[in-house]
């Protein structure tokens, strides 16, 4: 049986690890051709494991334009763009260096803007030839919905992703551009990024990452972290025609964290 994304072309930024890797797997399971992009050299083990890989510094407009040229040459279209790439930063406002703040905003927000802007023409073209248009899925966070102490830069960046998404959805809908745009808001997911963030934090607090991760799991109503695939499957739903009437929506996947 053909998958619901058969014939669709997708690109997932930050697609070699963690949530991004799981998103690639889920889109492929539904039949899509998926480009993973990341910083790795093309001959790295992770890059070679990807079905289609584009080395991409997602903060560079030139790099995005080169990626578009590759996809355009290969398929002439893009149906699904998942702006997943991102980074973590914790610390008190008093202790944050402006350079670190800017780097985080660049990694989490410039990347969404650049991916969207660069690929809009190819997405619009593909969207005109499918029944319910193309789909952009932006990975925000529950930290784009609610605040947390010492997470100010990440909160700000992910809140930015949330409202960029809504504005973009309305812009396209108002102009009749056949691209749906929605955001996904994961809670705490068991990824290398999460562990690294906690390792940095734990070092400052004099505890261990494991202890902090377990404590975080206990603050989630489900008493566990999400597995990356539990985010990937939600992205695949939003990418598909099953979500044909959804645009500008935020899908929260947090085991009940923000229901309180």
């Amino acid at each position, binding site marked *: 049986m*053909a998958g619901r994304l058969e014939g669709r072309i997708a690109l997932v930024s930050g697609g070699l690890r963690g949530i991004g890797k799981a998103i690639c797997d889920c889109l492929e399971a539904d039949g899509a051709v998926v480009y993973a992009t990341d910083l790795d050299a093309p001959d790295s083990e992770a890059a070679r494991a990807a079905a289609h890989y584009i080395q991409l510094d997602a903060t560079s407009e030139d790099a995005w334009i080169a990626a578009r040229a590759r996809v355009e040459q290969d398929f002439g279209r893009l149906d699904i763009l998942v702006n997943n790439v991102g980074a973590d930063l914790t610390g008190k406002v008093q202790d944050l260096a402006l350079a670190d703040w800017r780097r985080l905003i660049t990694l989490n927000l410039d990347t969404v803007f650049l991916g969207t802007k660069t690929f809009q023409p190819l997405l619009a073209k593909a969207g005109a030839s499918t029944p319910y248009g193309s789909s952009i899925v932006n990975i925000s966070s529950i930290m784009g919905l609610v605040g947390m102490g010492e997470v100010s830069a990440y909160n700000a960046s992910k809140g930015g992703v949330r409202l960029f998404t809504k504005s973009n959805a309305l812009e396209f809908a108002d102009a009749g551009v056949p691209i749906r745009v929605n955001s996904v808001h994961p809670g705490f997911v068991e990824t290398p990024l999460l562990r690294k963030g906690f390792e940095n934090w734990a070092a400052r607090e004099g505890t261990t990452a494991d202890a902090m991760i377990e404590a975080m799991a206990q603050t989630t*109503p489900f008493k566990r972290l999400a597995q990356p695939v539990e985010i990937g499957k939600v992205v695949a739903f939003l990418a598909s025609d099953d979500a044909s009437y959804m645009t500008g929506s935020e899908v929260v996947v947090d085991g009940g964290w923000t229901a309180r």
Partner: protein
Amino acid sequence: MTAKTDLTGTVALVTGATGGIGRATVGALTEAGAQVIASDIGVNAQVDGAAMYAPLDVTSEAAWADVIGRIEREFGRLDRLVNNAGISVTNSVAATSLSEFRKCFAINVEGVFLGTRAAQPLLARGGEGREGGSSIINLSSVGGLRGAAMMSTYCASKGAVKLFSKSAALEFAALKLPIRVNSVHPGGIETDMMDTIFARYVDEGLFPDMDAARAAVSAGHAVGRMGRPAEIAEGIAFLASPAASFMTGSELVIDGGMTAR
């Protein structure tokens, strides 16, 4: 043919199954492989795809006990509950009678409470050891997120559904019951209920005729059209499935961009 959400081996109950979204939901869940019990207020009804039709007044505790008992006897389990039954009230606050207000709450809110309570034991058992557990999907509305003129009673009821869902989700998680609870928030959908609302708008002089009301409501969605029942049903099927295994207490807004503004 697309690979849909797989609900093979599950048993689902859909209330309000003869309405537009209800019928589409029965269809989507059946297509995904679930055995679906369709229920509604009428004694008899034909709902395509349903394994069984069970008459159910969602405001009656006794009726819920009967239907859940019947499902346990005939199917031995229940894994998904879609609390979809609901009515609209389109009226000014001044002209709304207390009985009209209470009737709306009895169906839209008490119905969700009674259904959740009655089905909880079977759902808890059905979710045990199953990926993603059991799932309750409560139909709220964009009216449960935003207010609308002449819709105070309806919006209040749908706001209640939204927060009942979150509290039930947290309660079940705290009790380690394998039941996820989420709400769905449709925009204006091509259903008989919307036609009823349009007719009331015309009665109240908000629009000269049905077509004008329909055009204005369509334009209120960023995508410029109302939704189709199937577009809500696919969201319900998604929440019912293991693909939504980490989702509980969430709101799935399917509104063509209406509330993005």
